[in-house]
């Protein structure tokens, strides 16, 4: 009998995490059944497959899938596996095709999944039915405002029910666009981190680490003219206040007053004087469309949103859609994209992409140090049997609001994860 995964003691104001959860292959095996096969998992965005016939291939929860738009415009998700003998049927990362033909024996599928052609079909008995041999699909596949998710549990609640209050924060991101439509931009950042996937969930919303892990990024911001003075006496670790918000179902977000600039309408000197007139115009459009309060919400606050278990939308220095999955207990693969309003001008688009690179990604001024921190955690956890508990009580039992630099939101994740992991099958 193993120890509990978490010790969650409200009376003692103590929250401890069993480090076995971050190192054990058997925990990962259980996660695959109890977390990844039960929850809605992000597949891709409709903007990646704009035209009929467009497709992308990727792995989702380790499963090779085809995410495509068929000739009539309908969006599908197929397992990228031939029904005949199991080979991958589409080997290209992206493209436009009428269908997919397996190179092994030539079984050919239309881009709506139907099996269209079987070489030498006359050798099969009359019990052989091509209609039953279309590409397999995950049991559930649904979307919310262009974000497509799959679910391996046919009895799961609808995606919209699952997302719940997280939808409000997705809407807030999408309000950057005059038509409420944003698109994934060209250029994916695909990289591995030698750390457990759950460490990325924590890291994506943990503002406590920013002053230490990202001191060189803060120095870069300061050198460029951004004020990074931290007010004393409010328990803050950053120049502005930010909160940690529970959105139910294991989803949560930070909600921060912005100091770091936003391509949607909060100018900082890095953007250059030339950018001011256009950014004023973007803000004017926001105010006209949304009213002053909502416009301020869009432009002057930023948030890192976690859709349980493994989708992060960082609406900060720019917008990134980031998902990650475990390769093994001590290694994850990350895919990250930039995300922008479809109406954006060339100059605003260039500014958004440039702002992205100030912080995010494998060549950014911050992400490489996050990777380093996560890998150092994983290396340190080699001692887990002798030093088995992580201390995650920060902010517990506070009278005042839970801040982005507390660990309230991290506990929300772990409580939901624990609930799923401790559930009977």
């Amino acid at each position, binding site marked *: 009998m193993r120890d509990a995964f978490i010790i969650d003691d409200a009376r003692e104001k103590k929250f401890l995490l069993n480090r076995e959860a971050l190192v054990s292959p058997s925990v990962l095996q259980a996660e695959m059944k109890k977390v990844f096969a039960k929850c809605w998992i992000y597949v891709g965005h409709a903007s990646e497959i704009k035209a009929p016939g467009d497709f992308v291939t990727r792995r989702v929860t380790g499963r090779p899938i085809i995410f495509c738009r068929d000739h009539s415009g309908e969006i599908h998700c197929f397992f990228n596996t031939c029904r005949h003998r199991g080979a991958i049927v589409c080997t290209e990362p992206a493209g436009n095709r009428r269908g997919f033909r397996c190179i092994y024996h030539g079984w050919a599928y239309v881009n709506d999944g139907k099996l269209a052609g079987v070489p030498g079909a006359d050798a099969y008995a009359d019990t052989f039915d091509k209609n039953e041999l279309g590409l397999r699909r995950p049991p559930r596949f649904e979307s919310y405002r262009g974000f497509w998710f799959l679910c391996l549990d046919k009895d799961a609640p609808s995606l919209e029910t699952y997302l719940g209050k997280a939808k409000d924060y997705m809407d807030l991101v999408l309000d950057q666009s005059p038509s409420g439509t944003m698109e994934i931009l*060209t250029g994916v950042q695909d*990289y*591995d981190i*030698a750390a457990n996937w759950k460490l990325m969930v924590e890291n994506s919303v943990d503002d406590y680490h920013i002053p230490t892990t990202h001191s060189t*990024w803060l120095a870069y911001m300061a050198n460029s003219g951004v004020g990074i003075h931290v007010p004393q006496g409010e328990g803050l670790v950053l120049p502005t206040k930010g909160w940690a918000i529970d959105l139910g179902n294991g989803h949560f977000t930070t909600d921060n007053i912005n100091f770091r600039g936003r391509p949607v309408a909060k100018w900082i000197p890095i953007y250059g004087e030339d950018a001011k007139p256009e950014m004023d115009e973007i803000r004017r459009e926001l105010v006209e469309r949304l009213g002053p309060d909502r416009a301020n919400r869009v432009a002057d606050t930023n948030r890192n949103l976690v859709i349980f278990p493994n989708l992060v939308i960082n609406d900060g220095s720019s917008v990134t859609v980031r998902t990650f999955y475990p390769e093994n207990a001590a290694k994850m693969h990350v895919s990250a994209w930039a995300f922008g309003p479809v109406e954006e001008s060339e100059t605003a688009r260039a500014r958004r992409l440039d702002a992205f690179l100030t912080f995010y990604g494998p060549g950014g001024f911050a992400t*490489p*140090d996050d990777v380093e921190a996560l890998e150092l955690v994983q290396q340190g956890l080699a001692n887990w049997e002798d030093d088995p508990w992580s201390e995650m009580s920060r902010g517990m039992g506070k009278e005042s609001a839970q801040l982005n630099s507390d660990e309230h939101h991290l506990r929300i994740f772990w409580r939901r994860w624990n609930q799923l992991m401790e559930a009977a099958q």
Partner: protein
Amino acid sequence: MNAPSNAIRVSRAEVEDFLYHEAALLDEWRLDEWLELLTDDAIYEVPPNDTPGGSSKNTLFILADDIVRIRERVKRLKSPNCHAEFPHSRTRRLITNVRILQTEGNLVTVAANFVCYRYRRHERIREFVGTYRFVLQHTHDGFRIKARRTTLDAYELGSLGAVSFIL
């Protein structure tokens, strides 16, 4: 090779000497000296693995620095708080297949292949393989780098992890 009559004449050997010198400065972490090799309008880019021919104006790059950000990047790299590079990686660049693609006025466009081996603490080797494309400006004091684009051959960054040093 396209060489209009107004263009300066440079030999491949001169270009190679310069690239080897640059590689030595980077491998030895002599980053202030490396900065002196750049023009005041220099750019440094690493395109994403899936769109190696893209433009940073409409495509998400791994990095796309103007001279201001290059200088900030060097400040960061020299800080012990640049955790991804402290202690510094040991790198070793092998540069080959150097070609002068074009000369125009005092500008020379150069392509080269590279392998950059990176060693870090107790990690196994990471091998960065790809091509360099430089625009070099010829001055009375030798070459200066006006543009520097590092393109990786790998389909994805994957186990290479990050481009946390000057590649």
